């Protein structure tokens, strides 16, 4: 039963809001001697729409009696419209870019959706680039992102569960999944974790990611990101869950295994041999990035005898003028390489590449010429840095960047045994962690031949089943 409201309350509320200095605008319209107030915030609304679809039809209205219901049903042209009577909600509606129409003598008010947010158009992806893939990347606009997904997945079972997160920002967070494919348990878990988030503001999907991961201290990422709408849709179809956050151009994808980070979307429809080859190449490059410098330390410092005799001399002569030992040399060069990388990321686009090239060539050449590092070390660092760009999702390689130094130190202390020990510890970490309940190293550990085969081949025509580790409801793809 609706609570009876005094007519004057809305006007009083309106005056209160005006005093708060939050930039509320009020348009007073008088029709047949009765006042109508339209309240909105200029920066959040489409003022043309207000003028043409609310004010104009109101001013043209000639009948005597003007009621809330009459306005909604016969006067204004706005499509998304509703009626409310709670005066305390007015502020929320207005802050969300809606226009509130108040008739002083009425007991309820109209909410018209006239919101307009400044947004950029759909552009090509910046971080998940691919040769043969659609180029419609997500933008910061929530509705645009949802529309990109809806456009690709015209299926009634696509569920979009909305949540409001952030005490002050009141950011919309949507959980997207296929109702008849995704495992209920995972969906429940994701929703539960999102509902538990209690923070003042969410600015980016990364905020949500931080709050929902299993273990904040895990070095490897356990939530994937999708910059392209096709990647997000492919993951939803696979049985995964996608989380869209208002104001973020990166969707979150979960559960995400280690293998998924090295799986590029176009692997599934590219030449099958090339897909297998590139997948192998990516694993090789991640291994190289991780152990190349450490192997150099092991070979130069401890176990030179594992090299062929001819190569021993080549390595030794290349290091003659180097004043520091291999451990310091490797740490120094990797540090410089990381410094260059970090500097070139932060620099403006116009000068970034120039600094990258200058830094690499000048520092590399000068260091060798000055006899500070060996030419071999420069090759190794360049190769390991290059190798660390080969994964389609850069987040997994951030972990490798840190672990590379761990491997160098442990090898510097324990030699080849240290290298093996460090590598084993990393593998232990990978195989023993989970992402939302899914073993992180699936399908390699626990091993499933069919999933493994599908993962390696990746061809959309050959993969008839969805991955078993995702425990999806609908197990077949075709």
């Amino acid at each position, binding site marked *: 039963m609706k609570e009876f409201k005094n007519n004057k309350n809305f006007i009083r509320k309106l005056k209160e809001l005006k005093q708060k200095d939050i930039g509320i605008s009020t348009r007073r319209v008088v029709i047949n001697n009765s006042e109508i107030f339209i309240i909105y915030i200029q920066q959040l609304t489409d003022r043309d729409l207000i003028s043409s679809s609310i004010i104009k039809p109101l001013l043209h209205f000639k009948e005597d009696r003007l009621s809330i219901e009459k306005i909604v049903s016969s006067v204004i042209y706005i499509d998304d419209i509703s009626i409310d009577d709670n005066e305390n909600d007015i502020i929320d509606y207005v802050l969300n870019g809606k226009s509130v129409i108040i008739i002083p003598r009425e007991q309820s008010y109209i909410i018209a959706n006239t919101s307009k947010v400044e947004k950029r158009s759909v552009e090509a992806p910046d971080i998940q680039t691919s040769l043969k893939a659609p180029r419609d990347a997500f933008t910061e606009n929530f509705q645009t992102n949802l529309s990109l997904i809806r456009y690709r997945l015209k299926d009634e079972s696509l569920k979009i569960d909305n949540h409001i997160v952030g005490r002050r920002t009141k950011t919309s967070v949507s959980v997207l999944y296929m109702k008849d494919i995704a495992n209920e348990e995972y969906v429940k878990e994701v929703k539960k974790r999102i509902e538990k988030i209690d923070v003042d503001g969410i600015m980016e999907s990364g905020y949500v990611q931080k709050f929902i991961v299993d273990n904040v201290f895990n070095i490897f990422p356990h939530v994937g990101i999708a910059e392209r709408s096709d990647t997000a849709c492919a993951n939803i179809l696979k049985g995964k869950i996608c989380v869209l956050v208002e104001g973020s151009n990166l969707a979150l994808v979960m559960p995400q295994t280690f293998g998924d980070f090295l799986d590029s979307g176009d692997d599934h429809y590219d030449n099958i041999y090339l897909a297998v080859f590139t997948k192998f190449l990516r694993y090789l490059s991640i291994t190289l990035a991780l152990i190349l410098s450490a192997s150099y330390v092991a070979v*130069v410092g401890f176990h*030179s005898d594992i090299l062929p005799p001819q190569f*021993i001399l080549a390595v030794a*002569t290349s*290091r003659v003028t*180097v004043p520091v*030992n291999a451990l310091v040399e490797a740490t120094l060069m990797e540090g410089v390489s990381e410094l260059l990388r970090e500097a070139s990321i932060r620099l403006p686009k116009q000068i970034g590449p120039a600094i990258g090239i200058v830094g690499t060539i000048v520092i590399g050449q000068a260091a060798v010429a000055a006899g500070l590092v060996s030419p071999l070390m420069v090759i190794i660092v360049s190769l390991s840095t290059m190798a660390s760009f080969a994964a389609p999702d850069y987040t997994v390689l951030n972990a490798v960047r840190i672990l590379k130094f761990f491997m160098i130190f442990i090898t510097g202390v324990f030699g080849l045994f*240290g290298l093996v020990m460090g590598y084993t*510890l990393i593998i232990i970490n990978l195989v023993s962690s989970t992402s939302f309940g899914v073993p992180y190293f699936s399908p390699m550990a626990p091993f499933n031949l069919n999933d493994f085969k599908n993962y390696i081949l990746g061809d959309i025509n050959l993969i008839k089943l969805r991955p078993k580790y995702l425990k999806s409801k609908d197990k077949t793809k075709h």
Partner: protein
Amino acid sequence: MIRRYSKILIILVIPSLILTGCWDYQDIDKRSIIITVGVDHIKGDVEFATEVARLVPSAGEAKIAKQDIYKDLSYGKTFEFARVDYDSRRPFPTFLSATRVVVFGPNYAKEGVEPYMNRINKMYDYRKTLLTVVSREPASELIQTKVKKSISVGFLIEDMMTFLSEKGTALYPKVGEILSDISLGDVGYILPYIGKSQESIKYLGLAIMKESKLIGTVDVKNSEGILYLLAEDPVFTEIVTLENDKENKYSFRIKIGDRKIKSEYKEGKPIINVDLELKNQLQYQYYVGPINDEEKKILEKKISKVVKKYITDIIKRSQEEFECDIFSFAKYFRADNPKVYKKIDWSKEYPEIKINVNVKSKIINMNLSDPSAKQNY
């Protein structure tokens, strides 16, 4: 988390601490990389003649460091004293893993190389695939040679022996194989024999080692019989003629198709049967002419005869002159007749045992010469 991984950490850390650690750390450029070791006996002292890599930094335009070698000698009553003498002149600790060749001087080879072979076996940084050779000149003289064909004597010997053994004209016995022969006791072994020639190093033939002592050499020209029996995948060239046309020589490339060595024990005597199947390819004739099937068979028989003679001659020499089983027939006999082998003294029996050599040869390729041309066309 640490508790969860504690067992794994213990399993990984403890062996690492025991097996290696920063106390073993020594950069490769801070070690004396030995390329060649020469061992000899001079006036009652052990002599080590070594070639060591001198790591020279780059100069001028060339940005890559240049490789260089320095040579020196050290002496001592024993290996250990010689090593002390050696180490006392060294800027860095010795590194033996890059050693390409160990040269035994004639004096040391005659006295017996077994001690040094055992030293190679047990010193962890020596490679067991190392090449060992015997030199005609004293080891120090050979190593001091200023070779022009390579940057060091060691590199030259190793490259030369690798090339010759791949071609099938020399043996490349590795230390590991020789140690296995030494441990058997009853057999001798063969090492490459090299010498100085015109400011360079030359492969002279094979050195016959009995009880690890040098007892004789086989010249490179007479070593074919040994290579037919011992080389891994030899390729030979033989020239034969037909009776009716002595002028026209036929040059054949010969490969071993099958080599079977079987043994038996009959009437109190070991018998060794060597069966060789040769595959011959005609390379060219001195004067081109048709060869019919009959002539082809004659050529096959001639090749068999020539090869059989090589083998029987060297076997005879090994029984009469060297009195030593350099072909390791003992290994075959021991495998076939283990009980008998234990009872007999193989080294004493060897000069008397019967060795049957049977060589079959087949021409498999006439290099586009059609033997039936005359009949068909």
